């Protein structure tokens, strides 16, 4: 089969690889019909995630048709078209039993701090990803959900990560009716967090980024008040001015470890690797939220450490909540939201690529070229 093939930072190509086979009685093999590139893949592409081996296939956002199932799989059969959550979860461990499907203890021998994720380095279990014609899906009875007849495939593929992650960002923020919610990052995740904040009862939604075309999109799609941080001298002062001097009730970090805007963090975190990337957006979130407020983090960071103002977390009495999205837990509700038209995921898709154009697709998305918001790959044409 054809599959994306990582060669080192900023270098990817298509390679011929063997079609995956059943390795465990709870596996399924899926023929991929849609597969996205995610902001998280850019962290891999830039070589920021430890144990990203040459020859790996990325891709954790995919849906596809079941081709084959292992002996213990009961809920799926060949021919089923399924949404595959990005987390690999056993459904029965200490963590899965609590609904923490992003923190499974039976899917990643390489690290305890994160469960298995498709195509996300050996630090997340070494599972090959879905930017390929076929993928192996462990614990096939637990994660995958059949795509309802009425649902568009472009909506379905965004339910594997983008929609649930944005939704969980808002859920973890503990939004109360009327709250002012500030979201850093107008990528697909920040955009979905803005839409979801309203579903949880926000009174005011503000989004910050520096890419005007994304801010324009979220201003309409959220909807949201939007600001370009290049025009703001001091984020904390600005947000206080916006909120009667108090700060926002809730701040959401939907940027992660490649935040731009600080030469210091870029030097220390991105170039010298003395920090796990640049945590500028998190820094801003901590300093822009009101005392007693909540900072919800879905942006991804590396495993070592970052420079953030911990003292302010203490002195302001903040609650910090964060996680990999527990996709499976949210899917029933989110499918309802899509059916009722409360969320229209496919409007985010701006680009479509065939697998053979993978190198260009990564370059365009990583460079934020051509006004890209969300690229989708069609591995089987």
């Amino acid at each position, binding site marked *: 089969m054809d599959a994306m093939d990582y060669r080192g930072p900023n270098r990817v190509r298509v390679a011929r690889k063997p079609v995956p086979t059943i390795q465990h009685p709870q596996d399924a093999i899926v023929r991929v019909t849609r597969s996205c590139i995610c902001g998280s893949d850019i962290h891999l592409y830039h070589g920021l995630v430890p144990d990203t081996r040459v020859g790996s296939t990325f891709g954790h956002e995919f849906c596809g048709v079941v081709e084959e199932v292992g002996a213990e799989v009961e809920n799926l059969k060949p021919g089923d078209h399924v949404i595959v959550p990005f987390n690999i979860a*056993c459904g029965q461990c200490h*963590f899965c039993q609590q609904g923490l499907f992003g923190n499974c203890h039976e899917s990643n021998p390489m690290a305890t701090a994160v469960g298995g994720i498709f195509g996300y380095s050996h630090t997340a*279990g070494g599972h090959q990803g879905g930017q390929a014609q076929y993928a192996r899906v462990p614990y096939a009875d637990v994660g995958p959900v059949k795509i309802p007849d009425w649902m568009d495939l472009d909506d379905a593929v965004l339910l594997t990560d983008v929609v649930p992650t944005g939704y969980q960002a808002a859920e973890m923020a503990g939004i109360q009716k009327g709250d002012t919610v500030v979201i850093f990052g107008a990528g697909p995740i920040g955009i979905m967090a803005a839409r979801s904040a309203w579903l949880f009862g926000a009174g005011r939604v503000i989004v910050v980024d520096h890419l005007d075309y994304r801010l324009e999109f979220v201003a309409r799609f959220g909807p949201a008040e939007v600001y370009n941080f290049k025009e703001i001298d001091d984020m904390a002062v600005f947000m206080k001015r916006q909120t009667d001097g108090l700060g926002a009730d809730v701040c959401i970090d939907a940027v992660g470890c490649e935040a731009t805007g600080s030469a210091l963090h870029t030097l220390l975190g991105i170039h010298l690797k003395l920090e796990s990337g640049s945590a500028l957006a998190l820094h801003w979130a901590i300093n822009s939220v009101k005392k007693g407020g909540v900072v919800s983090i879905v942006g991804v960071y590396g*495993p070592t450490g970052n420079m953030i103002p911990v003292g302010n977390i203490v002195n302001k009495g903040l609650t910090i909540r964060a996680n990999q999205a527990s996709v499976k837990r949210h899917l029933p509700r989110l499918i309802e939201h899509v059916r009722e038209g409360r969320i229209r995921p496919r409007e985010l898709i701006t680009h479509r690529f065939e697998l053979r154009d993978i190198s260009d697709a990564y370059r365009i998305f990583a*460079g934020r*070229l051509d006004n890209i918001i969300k690229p989708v790959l069609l591995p089987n044409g």
Partner: protein
Amino acid sequence: MAPDHTRLPARRTGLADPSSIPGWGVDAETRNDPTWPMRDRADSPGADWPHPVPQQGGAEVLQSVEYKARPAVYGLGPQPRGLSGAMRRAAFRFSESNWWHWLLLLGADRVDMVEGIGSDLATGRVPNLPAETGMAAAWKHDARGQVLKWGAIAAGIAVVVMARNRRRRA
């Protein structure tokens, strides 16, 4: 020397039974729980859930020393190889909480990249770097940025070359 994770310091105090502590739980407020959905402590399977059957096969799995038991499934992504593989094996002697673990892995990733070029060449393939880095797309959608970037690189090289020539002449 990598740390020996089997050596544990002796426990200095006995574990207390919470219910023996005066006033334990009198102010417990179940609604005040920011750890949603990790809520139903009473229903938790503890550490003894029915484990899935282990995945079979001969793959080399580098396992975190923080696990009590091997997780049932793992991916079949690229196996450790060569020098980078040796570095990865060394990394896994340290816990996830130890800097060496991650520094060795990041170092291994860079070595792996060079080994990847080596294995390409060994199979008679010269990696097409402009294509793999999506250079055509960058020129198509961001010609100005490309001109600035390559111009700056060319100017930098020119300055270095000129400085060296001048020094040689002097």
